[in-house]
């Protein structure tokens, strides 16, 4: 069965069973590997993408249930046109291994879209489901504040 998907502003026709999680559609079928495979049970946040601007765990979202425009880390901003959050991540040298950071950034983008000036507590609450085993949390928080300020000034 062919499904039509809108991903990062492009249309893709995929011929896969409707039960296949969006994560594997993105990674194995479309070749967008920026969205990471972590726990596979929506408990780590590495696979976070946006559907209609809202952060979702793509490992638990079946292809059949994708209802809207998908944005992945590749669609958030490229190397020449970074999103303010990506720029803040670079500035604060947030990443250690970097594996969870696509998901962290997508989650942070969702937060700032809804709350342009989050408090520490609001950041913690929004980011709690995104694990970072390297322990980059303090820099993630600092980068989110920085990005919020930059987006406000923009």
């Amino acid at each position: 069965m062919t499904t039509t998907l809108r991903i990062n502003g492009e249309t893709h026709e995929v011929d896969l069973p409707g039960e296949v999680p969006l994560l594997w559609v993105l990674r194995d079928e479309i070749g967008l590997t920026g969205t990471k495979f972590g726990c596979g049970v929506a408990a780590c946040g590495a696979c976070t993408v946006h559907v209609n601007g809202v952060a979702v765990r793509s490992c638990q979202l079946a292809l059949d249930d994708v209802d809207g425009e998908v944005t992945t880390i590749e669609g958030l901003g490229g190397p020449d046109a970074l999103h303010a959050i990506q720029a803040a991540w670079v500035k604060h040298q947030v990443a250690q291994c970097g594996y969870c950071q696509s998901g962290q950034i997508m989650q942070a983008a969702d937060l700032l879209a809804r709350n342009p000036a989050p408090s520490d507590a609001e950041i913690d609450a929004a980011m709690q489901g995104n694990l970072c085993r390297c322990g980059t949390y303090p820099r993630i928080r600092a980068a989110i504040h920085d990005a919020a300020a930059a987006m406000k000034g923009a």
Partner: protein
Amino acid sequence: MTERRRLSRRAFLALGGTATVAVAAGATVYALQAETPLTGQAINAFVAITPDGDIEFVCPGQDIGQGAPVALAMVLAEEVGASMERVRILPAPRDAARYGNPDFSGRMVTADSKTTLGYWPMLRLAGAELRLALIETAARRQGWTARDCKTEAHAVVHVPTGETRGFAEVIAAGRLRMPGAAQGDLKRAKDFDLLGTSPQRPDALEIVTGAKRFGTDQPRGGMSLAVLRRSPHLGGTVVALDATAALATSGVSDVHQLEDQSAVAVVASSTWAAIKGAKALEITWSDAPDFDSETERNALAAALDDTQVAPVAVRGAPMRSATPDAAMFYSPTLSHVLPEPLIASVEGRSLGLGASTTSATQSLDLDMRYGARTWKTAPFMLETQATPSGGSYGRRVLNDVVRDAAEIAKAIGRPVQVIRPQLDEMIRGQVRPAAVQRLSARLDDAGRLVEWRHEIASDGTLATHLPSSMKGANGDEDNTATDGASHPYIGEDQSISWTRVVSMPSPGFLRGVSASYTVWAIETTIERLARDAGLDPLQWRLDHLEDARLRAVISRVGEMSGWSGSDRAFGLGAMIFREARIATVAEVTGTEVTHLWIAVDVGQIVHRKQLLAQVEGGAIWGLSQALCEKLTFAEGVAMIASIADYPMQSNGTLPPIEIETVETPGLSPAGAGEIGVPVTVAAIANAMEAATGVRFDALPLAV
């Protein structure tokens, strides 16, 4: 006079392509390991310079997430006088003779906080050799005296005139003259201008845009993908298998039962099909073993009194605790919880006589061992390649997924990539083994530490997997089980010993190794003794340490936290580990950790922000070990249904963490990757005891 020795005399084959043919004793041998493709003039095994003046650094350490390649590149670039943005980091091929870490028995292993520490001397020399070659060549051409020249900002500078010649200009006139370098040619620490700064890592943009390709992101081409179904309990083997439903799953091509019957692999054209196929396997497993964490804890404690077993001496002759009320310290089994699942691909080469592996690994050498043994070929017939890995923390040293991939690729006769889902690894994979320690000591009338009896019982990772790497007078000390046990305090009548108790879960290396619990037992004992004697535990430490650098970090962390004279619930942890000196103070309010202060002296700082990130990340890991983490087994089964059942420190409840450095320029850089973990566990335990009056005998702390 120091003998001049050119690093370039080490065999250096600047060959491209995929195979080296060596002819030895009349026999032709095909070695598959590809050389690093360089475009520039090779100066020695580690560095080449391109016609454009760019530096190519052949990096012997793997990109496992904590910044080793950047740190090593900085060490080299400092000596060259190169700008970091003009340094290209290229992975070294597997060749322990050239690229092995001297601090790792000459093996190519990126682990154990030894990468910067181990490669520091040779990379400085390698860089100095290029610097002297550039200076000699420029000076000869310009009519300068080489002694009047230095390098700076990617150029040779003639100091008396201030004239400069960029590296590109120097190399443009042809090959460099090669005067060689010796110890006396190394830059002085006071002249360092790159070390101690925080240049942006070259992959920063790739990470934030999702372009960085980790192991699981490598292009697979037409390669099949396999997922293994392993027994839900420890030690289970296949008794009966019905693969009908798995083989009927769309996309599944093969089902292969591993030779040792421990797992069944489902090979498919896509990851999802392999995962689904593995779920569809119907397997009857052999019975679960009689293993549970509580029984193990009792067995570990009992081993300390087993007169049939001779403990391994770590310091002094092994002695039992002198008092019947000696304190006990239990640390549970832990899991790594890798962000990126274990991943390896294997492809047959040379008509199947050899093979090539690609994996997110910490050791090309050990991958070779796993691959060659499984492929049943000679080690040199195995090419091993590394990709960046999404977190390693010690788990990818004994990277056994290579073995799975080699067996399956050989069995199905096609290349295959194996991915081991996180939960499977947590249930049946490697662990930080549980340990029981017993520690007694006392302070004599003068406040001196006497009758120190520290007994440790645990399994040993080296003893289990790499017995030839054990150390000690009798070659029986497993430093992954005794690390951190040799405390720095002045004292008399000391005995530290280790007894091995074989465990069922496979022991592995995990960030902080045994120091995360030995330092806890030591520092808690010290703090209890001092408090019981009415002494300030921080001041007692200052009075009973020979090491001035450790005293300095303890003093500093005392100032940072406002320790002196305070009645807040503070706890301290301090240690020397991989030559680093580090001390943490934790504050507990009620039963919450409300603040962490850390002072650290790592000798020469290489990349400042990476150092701070590692110490901070280590402290967060320590917080997690102190308060959350344990992997419990019952009737042979890990008691988790998903990673959600394995509590870990997340973003939600972090206390402020303040870190300051005490700097000692000119010393070698110490290992920094793990040091934040043990001292933070100890500091939190001590602060919790100060706050609650409870004496804890187990991690995580039951509060």
